[in-house]
Structure formats: C-alpha cells, structure tokens
C-alpha cells in the first residue's frame, strides 16, 4: 500500500511559482521606472552646459523621487538609494534562477508539514526567500561600495559604467578566469541540483528556512558575483545587459553543460584583451 501525498492543499493560495513571478515582475518594474527617470537625467547630464544652467532643478526633483547620484560625491542617502537599486536588481536577476530551488524547498517543507504539524512550518518558504535575498543584499552592499569608490575615483560615469579600459579589461578578465575556477564549479554544481542541496544542507524549522535561504544565496553569489561585476563594464543601469546577464546565469544553471561556462570564460577573456589593447571601445551601448 502506498499513500500519495498531496504536496499542497488545492486552495485559493497562490502557488510558489506565481508568487516568485510577481516578485520578479515588481523588481523589473522598479528597474524600468528608475531607468526611464535616469534616461531623462543622463540626457541632461550629457549636455555639458545644460547641467550647469537649467538641468539642476530638474535633476534635483528627479533625485528626490527615485534618485541616483549623478554628480559629485555621494551622500549617505545616495548610498542607501544605490544599495536599494542594486538589491532590487539582484532580486530581479536571480529569483528566476533560484525558483527551481525555492519550489523544491517549498514542496519538501509542505510534504513534511501536511503529515505532522501543518502550522509549525507555514511561512518557511517565505523565510527561505528572505534568507536568499538577504544574501544578495549583502552582495549589493559590496557592489554599491565598489561603485562608490569607482565613482569617487571617476573611474565610472554617472550611470555606473566604467570609463577606464583598464578597469573594464580587469573586470572582464577576472570574470572570464573565474569561469575556470574550482570554486565556480563547486558552487554551480550545488546550485544545479536542488535535491542534493536539500539533502546535504537541510535545516528544520523557521530558523532553518532562513539559514538555508542564506546558504543557497551565498552559493549563488559564489557562482555569479563575477558575472554581476560585468555590469560595471556593460552598464549598471543598462536593462538590456542586465537581462542578458540574468539569462546567461539562468542558462548556465539549467543546462547542466560543462562546456558553456568554459566557452563563456574564453569569450570574456578574449573581450578583455580586445578592450585592453584598445581594439574595442570601453563604452558599450545597446
């Protein structure tokens, strides 16, 4: 005799997949809004005289709404706003990739809950996602700090894009070389097999949910930090590149190909050489 467990009672509650889709859509909507706001601002900033004359008022207004430090030194408020932008961007880029893991976690925790203590485990999936996003917010803080430092050194422009071919080349080369590292392989291997992660890293309860989410997020950062750093070359606020990097991350994870990370590594290293030798321009625009 076997018992088939209904993993989640059929109810009006949204499925985990639908919730993740909504969160991702909301994050992308925020990025679009921010981008269109900044598009106006950068148009102003790009005109040398306008910035000094009539642009200021408009910029200050825009800055108070969505805000992106365009000029001069950052304030603490600028840092927080940029950190928010990075954190939302990471969520937008990574939640689709993490969704198989989150759904697997959800199913496991619910299958245990239905048979034992339904109430004790409710909300665990949310905590798992929170843990995951906390990990990426930590990464976002580091990225923001890097952008701040680069901004202060005028090595990136107002949009967070590298203005130095040496910085661009170094980031591309690092990202390319990292594709061949053992740690990348190890993290990617764990990210690719949700069941394996659930087995080896299982922690029970709500605290366990948060811990597991954090841990999975850390593994994803181990996989993807260098690809994310590419945004300093491609444009921190360039939505096309953001979408492309997110797609690369997703494809690399779901295809289980051993070749793909290597091919990507070779491409990035080649690109870095082209940039450092001056054969290709630093600025990338789509």
């Amino acid at each position: 005799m076997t018992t088939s467990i209904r993993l989640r009672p059929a109810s009006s509650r949204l499925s985990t997949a639908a919730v993740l889709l909504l969160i991702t859509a909301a994050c992308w909507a925020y990025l679009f809004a921010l981008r269109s706001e900044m598009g106006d601002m950068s148009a102003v900033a790009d005109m040398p005289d306008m910035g000094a004359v009539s642009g200021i008022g408009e910029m200050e207004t825009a800055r108070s709404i969505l805000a992106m430090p365009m000029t001069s030194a950052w304030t603490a408020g600028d840092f927080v706003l940029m950190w928010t932008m990075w954190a939302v961007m990471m969520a937008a880029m990574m939640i689709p990739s993490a969704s198989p893991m989150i759904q697997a976690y959800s199913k496991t925790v619910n299958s245990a809950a239905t048979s034992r203590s339904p109430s004790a485990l409710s909300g665990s999936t949310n905590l798992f996602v929170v843990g995951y996003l906390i990990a990426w917010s930590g990464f976002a803080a580091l990225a923001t700090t890097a952008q701040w430092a680069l901004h202060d050194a005028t090595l990136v422009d107002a949009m967070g894009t590298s203005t130095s071919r040496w910085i661009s080349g170094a980031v591309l080369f690092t990202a390319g070389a990292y594709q061949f590292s053992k740690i990348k392989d190890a993290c990617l291997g764990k990210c690719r097999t949700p069941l394996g992660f659930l087995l080896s890293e299982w922690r029970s309860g709500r605290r366990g949910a948060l811990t597991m989410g954090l841990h999975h997020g850390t593994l994803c950062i181990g996989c993807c930090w260098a690809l994310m750093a590419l945004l300093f070359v491609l444009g921190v606020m360039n939505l096309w590149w953001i979408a492309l990097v997110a797609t690369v991350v997703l494809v690399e994870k779901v295809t289980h190909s051993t070749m793909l990370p290597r091919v990507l590594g070779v491409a990035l290293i080649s690109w870095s050489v082209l940039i450092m030798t001056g054969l290709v321009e630093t600025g990338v625009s789509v």
Partner: protein
Amino acid sequence: MNHSWSVSGLYLEACNCESICPCRSHDGVPGGNATYDRCEFALSWKIEDGHFGEVDLGGRSAVMTGWYADAEPGVPWRVRVFVDDEASAEAHDAIAAIFLGRVGGHPAATYAPAIAEVLGIERADITLTHSERKWRIGVEGRVEVRASHRTEAHGPVVCGIPGANPGTEYTAEQLRVTDKPFQWDLAGRASFVAPFAYDGSF
C-alpha cells in the same frame, strides 16, 4: 520541475528490541514502545523497480542506521543514510531524498517526520542478501546484520515503515553497527522482512 517517482522492492531491518519487535502491529494489536526504551536500528531497502523522473533506480539499495528514545519529547530519530555506491549522482540524491521523506510519499507521511537529525548521507558498498533463512544487511566496515531464524507469530505482523503489507519476523543472530556515534553489537534481537512500494511526485 515535477518528477513523479516510485520505488518498490523488499525491506529488511533489525533493531535492538526483542523479537517480535513491540513497535510492530501483531495480529491486529497496534505496536507500542521499544523493549528497552531506546530503539537502535539498521533499516534497508532493496529497490527492485524504481524511478525518479527519468532516473532509473532499479537495482539500487539504501541503508539507514540510527536510534531514538521513547522518553525524549517528540521521539526524534538520529540517522545516517548509506546509498549504494553504484548509484549515479542523480540516483544517489533521489534515493536519499525518498527514504528521508524529503519528496513526499509514504516515508514523508509516516516515519520520516520523526527524523530530527541526519548525521550523514554517504555512498557505501552495500550488500543486501535476500534468501530465505539467510538474510543479510552489509555495509562495508559499518553495518552487519544476519538473520536466519523465523520468529513464531500468532497472526499478521506489520511494520509501518514498509507499509501495510504483512511481513515475516525473524530473530537476528547478529546486529552490529560500528559507525560512531552509532555503536551496538547485539545478538538474538528482532528482524523483519516485508515488501515495500512507495510513490509520490516532487
């Protein structure tokens, strides 16, 4: 990602209880607490037919060692799982997940929620010998169970782990686990054989 899975085959176990193990239902009387307040066990599953999504699990084996104390609140189990070292990486994960109750089905509905701590999931050289009057669970260097004497029963003997199918009670001449912190070496205790069939989707 939605995998249906199923595994069926023969379940074989031994524990430190006197035979017939008091946790089993015997002749319609439900089971109760362990003979010595603490249950120390070695469980095994030999999968004859099975799959997890596209992954074939036929012919693979798993062993679970562990203990629990009836007096401890919630009666939490501490276990270690051994998976057949011939299993592919995918099969290894699937087998461990199934028997630990992580992917639903009968284990998740019955014994697995009691598993409070998993001390390890390891690949091992497992030998499960299933022949009448010569039953054996062997995990290279860690577990040795031998049973050949049938225990007289007054009616159907049922164990919740394999499920509702009645099985056969034996007395094991050896139950040795040398796998810190699990260490016991006993003779003349309960052993049990029954078919199992679990399925679910994940």
